[in-house]
Structures are given as structure tokens and as C-alpha cells.
């Protein structure tokens, strides 16, 4: 198995795990979020992205390697922008879909199962692109 396939498989397995109360408590303590994230982007660091990407209502943001939707859905929630979440592991995207519904931003969030190297979008359509530790 290649390193890339191994990574995808590992994240598929990780996102397939239920998000337990213990996992949420740890996440809240470590990065300040409680969405099932397991990376290194804190809430403060997610907030720093807003001015850098000039996000505002109507902006179209692409989150590459979106996992369970952190920070893409959070950025959409905070700024009113629209967001497209792209990643390969289906369990992560399934959780993100659920979170978007719970956060009442389903009308501004889209989900695409695709690899970062083969993103199936037309050229020049996004106002901003974000990714966190996916390369």
C-alpha cells in the first residue's frame, strides 16, 4: 500500500469512529472546537483565516481535505460565506453533512468526494481556497 493510500485508509477508519463525549471534551480542551476534528488548527487559527481569505457573505470558499468539516463549516458559519468541502473519506464528509444540517447552513454548504490532486471544478470559480495540513 502506498503512503498516500495508507493515509486515506487511516483517515477513513478514524472518521468511521463515533464521535464520543470523551473525544469532544478532548477536542474542546485542545483546539477549542467540538466538531470531531483531530488536527492542529485551533479556533484562534481558524479565526485568523477570515481576514486573510477576505471571507464575507456570498464569498465562495473551497476547503480541500475537509475531513469532518473543520474549519470549512466553521468559517461559513462565522462569515456567511458559501463553502464547498472536498475530501476522499466518505465517513468524514457524512459527518460534515450532518453538522451543516445541525448548524442550519446546508443551503450554503456543498460536499464533493474528490482528491486534492483531481478537483472536479471549473477554473476560476472560487474566491478563496483553504486547507489545513493536507500537504
Amino acid at each position, binding site marked *: 500500500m502506498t*503512503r498516500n493510500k*495508507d*493515509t486515506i485508509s*487511516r483517515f477513513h477508519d478514524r472518521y468511521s*469512529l*463515533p464521535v*464520543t*463525549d*470523551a*473525544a469532544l*471534551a*478532548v477536542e474542546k*480542551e*485542545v*483546539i477549542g472546537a467540538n466538531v470531531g476534528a*483531530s488536527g*492542529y*488548527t*485551533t479556533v484562534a*487559527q481558524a479565526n*485568523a*483565516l477570515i481576514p*486573510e*481569505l*477576505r471571507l464575507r457573505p456570498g464569498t465562495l470558499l*473551497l476547503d*480541500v481535505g475537509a475531513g469532518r468539516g473543520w474549519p470549512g463549516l466553521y468559517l461559513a458559519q462565522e462569515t456567511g460565506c458559501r463553502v464547498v468541502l472536498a475530501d476522499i473519506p466518505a465517513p468524514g464528509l457524512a459527518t460534515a453533512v450532518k453538522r451543516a444540517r445541525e448548524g442550519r447552513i446546508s443551503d450554503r454548504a456543498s460536499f464533493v468526494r474528490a482528491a*486534492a*490532486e483531481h*478537483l472536479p*471544478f471549473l*477554473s*476560476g*470559480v*472560487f*474566491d*478563496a*481556497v*483553504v*486547507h*489545513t*495540513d*493536507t*500537504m
Partner: protein
Amino acid sequence: MLRACKRLLRPAGRVAFYTIFVPSGLSQAEYRRAARAGPAAVTSRGREQADLLRSAGFTGVSEIDVTEAFLRTTRAWYEARARYAGQLSEAEGEASFRERQRDYRLQAQAIESGLLRRALFVAERPR
């Protein structure tokens, strides 16, 4: 991937990303240790991310180092998960839990040794 990002952006569109990388100038042995200790996606070496962004055609490239925060967060994951070890082991499986804890420990050591860095890079597609 950066060229793909540039293609997808409209003119004056912006890209921002946090990334973990191996700094330039390490020996082969240090690089191998860094690659083993970092997340699986860590592959960059030699050419800095800022240079890669410029090569891909981006302008206004900026870099903000967040390595200290990266170390704090790595330690925090390890310590907080250790406090919830029983519940997390049950959910993740004992072997998987132990493996992740080992990975956080090795990663913290590699950051402390200067073998891994994390930074926020921001750039713009030319108008």
C-alpha cells in the same frame, strides 16, 4: 496541488493554508527522523512553501510561523487524551489509542528538536 488551487481561484482570489513541513538544511538522518515523526502528509523538503507558491504563479506570498503553537497543541492532544485514556481506548481500540499517543509523543520531540515546523501561508492569484 498549489497549481490546482491557482486554477480554481478567480483573479485576485486567495489561498491560505496551514502546513507542517520539514525545514531545509537537515541531514539525511534528520530528515528521515522528521518524516517518521510527522503526520503522514508531511513530505515537503528543500524548497520552502513560499517558493512553491511563487513558482505556481501566486503573488503577495506571506508566511506566519506557528511552530510554537503546533508544539503546544501536540502536547495538549497527548496530555488531554491521556486523561481520557479509558474511554478513548474503548472507542478507538487499545492498539490504535496507544499508537496515536506514541505518534504525538514522537512528534512533540521532533518539533522540540527543530525537525518539524508549521506555518500559515497566504497568497493571491494575480488579477
